[in-house]
């Protein structure tokens, strides 16, 4: 186990809900409600969950685009939870973010050169052969023609625009990249290209990724470890192979059973788990285990006592009173590849 580059402990973000003329607080949307995880150097952590479970909020909390309500974020030994933006600025070189929508993440009034060169200007970094040369090198690295330096974003396709976004992210040679749904706005064929590009760059530049996605196949393709979120909490986290082959949390199980299988023959034998009802409102989440309203295994204890995130197999933790595929019952999970 190598050292961790990013450590998150009990992170919380509550968005206040106000009402009336005097903005009295009547409640809070608990978008992220006490999550903890570690990201190790050089690995890719996938963060999955359905819409509204707090994945994106988590990413924005880590990059300090929004202010955490509680908890602690440690990046490379620095506690950045409430660090002043001015002190944070030099640290931002090592921690960058890839954005979801390649159409809104590039300023339409700036040339590609200005967009990819912005990190140098903002951080006041001098490069040996000038910013232009550095930018063109990065453009080449992400598979774009360096001669496109003077072009504007509207002249590129979605996939190319996402490459421009990735080029900007890479400009300062960061150590950690938070990728917030890096491919969900792209066509499937382009998704593969961009995902593979991210993998190649990881090998080449020794990057660490936190990939936020709702697409389990994408996460499976690039992650070393996967964390599953439900309603602002992590319900299961483990090595990719173990988690996908022997999911312990009923929610993970249900998610995985919903992944389409392209081969109709294989599809026949599979049992799909259909969850009933909607995701409860994060404004008023169910007590104790948040999944008990939709869980087919729920018992009385699930409504009264919150299950802790416990490590049941090596490197595989789950927050459930009645985990499936637990080692005591089936002695296999860690070795399944």
């Amino acid at each position, binding site marked *: 186990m190598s050292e961790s580059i990013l450590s998150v402990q009990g992170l919380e973000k509550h968005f206040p809900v106000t009402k009336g003329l005097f903005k009295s607080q009547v409640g809070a949307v608990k978008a992220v409600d006490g999550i903890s995880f570690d990201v190790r150097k050089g690995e890719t952590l996938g963060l999955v969950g359905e819409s509204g479970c707090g994945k994106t909020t988590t990413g924005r909390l880590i990059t300090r*685009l929004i202010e955490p309500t509680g908890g602690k974020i440690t990046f490379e030994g620095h506690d950045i939870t409430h660090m002043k*933006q001015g002190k*944070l600025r*030099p640290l*931002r*070189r090592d921690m*960058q*973010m890839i*954005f*979801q*929508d390649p159409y*809104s*993440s*590039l*300023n*339409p*009034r*700036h*040339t*590609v050169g200005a967009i990819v060169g*912005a*990190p140098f200007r*903002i*951080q006041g970094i001098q490069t040996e052969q000038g910013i232009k040369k550095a930018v063109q090198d990065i453009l*080449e690295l*992400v*598979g*774009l*023609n360096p*001669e*496109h330096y*003077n*072009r*504007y974003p*509207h*002249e590129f*396709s979605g*996939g*190319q625009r996402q*490459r421009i*976004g990735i080029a*900007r992210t890479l400009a*300062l040679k960061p150590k950690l990249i938070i990728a917030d749904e890096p491919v969900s706005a792209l066509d*499937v*064929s382009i*998704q*593969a*290209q961009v*995902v*593979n*590009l991210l*993998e*190649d760059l990881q090998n080449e530049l020794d990057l660490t990724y936190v990939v936020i996605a709702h697409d*389990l*196949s*994408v996460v499976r*393709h690039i992650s070393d470890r996967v964390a599953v979120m439900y309603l602002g909490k992590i319900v299961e986290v483990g090595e990719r192979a173990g988690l996908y082959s022997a999911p312990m949390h009923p929610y993970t199980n249900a998610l995985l059973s919903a*992944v*389409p299988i*392209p081969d109709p023959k294989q599809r026949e034998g599979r049992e799909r788990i259909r969850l009933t009802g909607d995701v409860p409102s994060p404004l008023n989440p169910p007590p104790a285990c948040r999944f008990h309203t939709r869980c087919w295994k729920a018992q009385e204890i699930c409504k009264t006592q919150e299950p802790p995130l416990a490590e049941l197999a090596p490197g595989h933790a789950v927050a459930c009173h009645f985990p499936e595929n637990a080692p005591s019952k089936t002695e296999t999970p860690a070795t399944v590849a």
Partner: protein
Amino acid sequence: MTAPLDVSGDELKATPESVAEGAGAKAIQGRSLGQIAWMRLKRDKVALTGAGVIIFLILVAVFAPLIVSWFGHPPNQFNQDQIDTMTMIPKGGSGISWDYLFGVEPVNGRDLFSRVVYGARISLLIAFLATLLSVFIGTVMGVIAGYFGGWVDMIISRLMDIFLAFPVLVFAMALVGVLGQFETQLEVKGDSLRILLLIFVIGFFNWGYIARIIRGQTLSLREREFVDAARSLGARGPYILFREILPNLIAPVLIYATLLIPTNVLFEAALSFLGVGIQPPTATWGGMLAAATKYYTVPHFMFFPGMAIFITVLAFNLFGDGLRDALDPKSGR
């Protein structure tokens, strides 16, 4: 959604995607949004006509003394020889001749052509500077309100409401009346004082509209991901405001400035018509219209300054519409 991702990555590796580059090794030159807007504008004949008229009017205003010395008589010179002494109206009804292209005024016989030409100076000067003033205040206030939000936005938005509800016309009349009494004690006097006053009144009370538009635009731009991207790179507030947001506001600012100018031309004419604006004998289009109402038997007296206002307003409106279509093709009509 899933399957293609399992394809092994080798053949899909990052290769430079060839964008249609045309034949040969021509240098790739991107077209900015401004250049594209200019191309669209060039195809819009109506807007180009408007632009042509505007340029013509500006040239007329700038070179008014020269034009008058070639084609007319000094604007304040009485030409009693052109007036029929019995009826006090110009000889031949209007006095239009090669010497007096637009005819002469009744009673004193001043050259109408020269007065219309000189009127363009006052009209355009006040309209341009007043627009500049309100666009400047409006943009600054709108950007600040939209970007900072919270109580700053609250205060500025309420201020906008107050200015939009302000009875400008009544205020202008009162202001001119009051200042007229102190004119002898002020540094600036006469026409310069009136011009400054009109620019202030028209410009300062008009920033509410543009500030509202800019505030809305800023609100929506602020939430775009490229602003987040700049922030995650460690950009400070001024960088985000001036480098990321402001360039995206150039289009709406230009459009509303062009559409505000004709409104201000009309407003200045209205104030002069009411006698609140520039005082006689200085020639203004509104003032001439006001004088002409007393002489309905000589329609040309009203026709020429009226046409001047009409053409100016129309030209700016057509150009402004064309500019909006060119800069913001999605807006539709």
